């Protein structure tokens, strides 16, 4: 990565280009694999890009660097977005992306901390990531390091009661080194969240658990960056960023359509998708 610009507009422009590439990789991987979850990966693409190409304190050459910031993708099925970011940051060769979900691949169907460099924690069973993040944040406090833990959750998985057990424990221990980001794309596997299991108002729920909350447009990189920077400054409280997003964002025929939760595009759909995401430079190909 180039030396980080101090200018917000330049940072945003840089991230926009990276986000295109991240999205292209997501579609590529899922198309090649003919298996995977494009909708939720695309909705989290801008958030993950902002983390991996601006915010995170990480060293791809030393994935287990003790002082690194940690990421937990609680909505583990969206892992193509994680793998894409990790490959582009150099944790493993980009050509590995073509092995997604294939036999003996380092890129399992859901994230695996023992197989993939840069994956800080195994995930995939929904509703568990925030608990895992609480444990990591407690560890950070115990060893008195100032690294930060980011947990990305779907708005469907917060149906799980364990999320709220975790929310209570995070505020008990005043885990200001923990930020939860809700990728609020309003769709879960069986349909719109307000039909399957309404959870609104999400921010008020977290506030009731003594969290500090910030609501943003999860595709506006400026809002994302400012929220993530603000989250690091909040003391004595964990922070929840409710990011309003669009499932399938960036590929018009996937946007807000339930069936693109876990479906691979065919050749024709693939070509349209890549065209819509737009030209990105050829680096990291």
């Amino acid at each position: 990565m180039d030396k980080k610009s101090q200018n917000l507009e330049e940072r945003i422009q840089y991230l926009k280009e990276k986000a295109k590439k991240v999205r292209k990789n997501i579609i590529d991987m899922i198309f090649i694999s003919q298996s995977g979850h494009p909708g939720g990966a695309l909705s989290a693409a801008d958030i993950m890009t902002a983390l991996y190409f601006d915010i995170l304190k990480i060293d791809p050459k030393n994935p287990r660097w003790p002082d690194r910031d940690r990421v937990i993708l609680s909505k583990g099925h969206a892992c193509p977005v994680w793998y894409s970011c990790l490959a582009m940051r150099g944790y493993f060769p980009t050509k590995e992306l073509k092995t997604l979900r294939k036999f003996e691949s380092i890129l399992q169907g859901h994230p695996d901390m023992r197989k993939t460099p840069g994956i800080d924690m195994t995930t995939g069973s929904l509703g568990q990531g925030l608990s895992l993040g609480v444990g990591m944040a407690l560890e950070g406090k115990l060893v008195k390091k100032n690294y930060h833990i980011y947990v990305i959750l779907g708005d469907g998985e917060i149906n799980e009661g364990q999320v709220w057990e975790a929310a209570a424990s995070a505020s008990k221990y005043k885990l200001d080194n923990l930020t939860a980001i809700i990728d609020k794309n309003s769709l879960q596997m069986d349909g719109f969240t307000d039909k399957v299991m309404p959870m609104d108002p999400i921010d008020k729920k977290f506030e009731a658990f003594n969290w500090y909350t910030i609501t943003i447009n999860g595709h506006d990189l400026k809002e994302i960056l400012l929220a993530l920077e603000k989250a690091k400054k909040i003391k004595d409280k964990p922070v929840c960023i409710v990011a309003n997003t669009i499932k399938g964002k960036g590929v018009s025929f996937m946007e807000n359509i339930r069936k693109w939760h876990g479906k691979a595009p065919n050749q024709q759909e693939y070509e349209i998708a890549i065209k819509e995401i737009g030209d990105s430079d050829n680096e990291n190909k």
Partner: protein
Amino acid sequence: MKINKAIITTRRAFSERMLEYGAINKDFVVFEADIGYSTYSHLFGDKYPERYFNMGIAESNTMAAAAGMAADGRTVIACSYGVFITMRALEAIRTFICYPNLNVKFLSSHGGVTPATDGVTHQATEDIGIMTTLPNMKVLAPADTESAKKIFDVAIKNPGPVFIRLMRDPLFDIYTKEDTFELGGSKTIRKGKDITVVTYGDTIFQALKAADELEKENISIEIIDMYSIKPFDKKNLLNSISKTGALLVVEDHQKRNGLGYELSNFCLKNKPVLFDNLGLNDTFAESGNYYKLIDKYGISKKHIFNKAKELISKKRK
């Protein structure tokens, strides 16, 4: 072997050793789910509050948070009752502790029907079956004060997840400070030639009493304390059954998927001998006095006495 009435429970003995060890080793932490005064983990928490995390009545979150804390290698002792650890929090344990093979050790109290009067909700009679099924998980079940203390050290020293089944009430003490314990080890606590009785935890004392009764009829039984259930001591088992030609497994657990099933499978493959097992027979127990329960549900000395005689008579045919 000298048998004394125990003064403290195995759960307490384990926690007392945890407290002692806390002074020697500053690296491990303890997670509790609001039964710290029952698991005695509060002993550690009172002395080392910065290394003690009480997560409330929320076992799934407790175990998943333990996984998060262990993700970079730290050792975590996670405490609760067997039923809650092995069922309420099972998926967190399987997917986030066993799968990545993290150093989480489970202080699992109230094993078998030992929480007798509490009834079925608190009696962990499927815990061994569930935990031994998980890849990477090791399972230990100390029977008395000394072994519970030593098993703490065994659990700490062996990497990866370890489940330790402990009991509610004080029973009997059989081991001394000189006895040693190890992962995959066992103890032959009574030598005999007619039949091998393998057991662990509270039913050991029923086996010892049955042995005394059988001795009066000139039947000598060999009793093995298989305190390391996974992995178990194949060598000692093979030596014993090669000598006796008959095996009876007794456990305060469902017959199905317990140590009995495991050893019958092992014997079929390696050394077929006359075999039977005692345990809960596809049923739940109930509330009541512990000794009445083990009698009613088939794991007391009279059942061991009868079953041992039955197997031996088959052998002589």
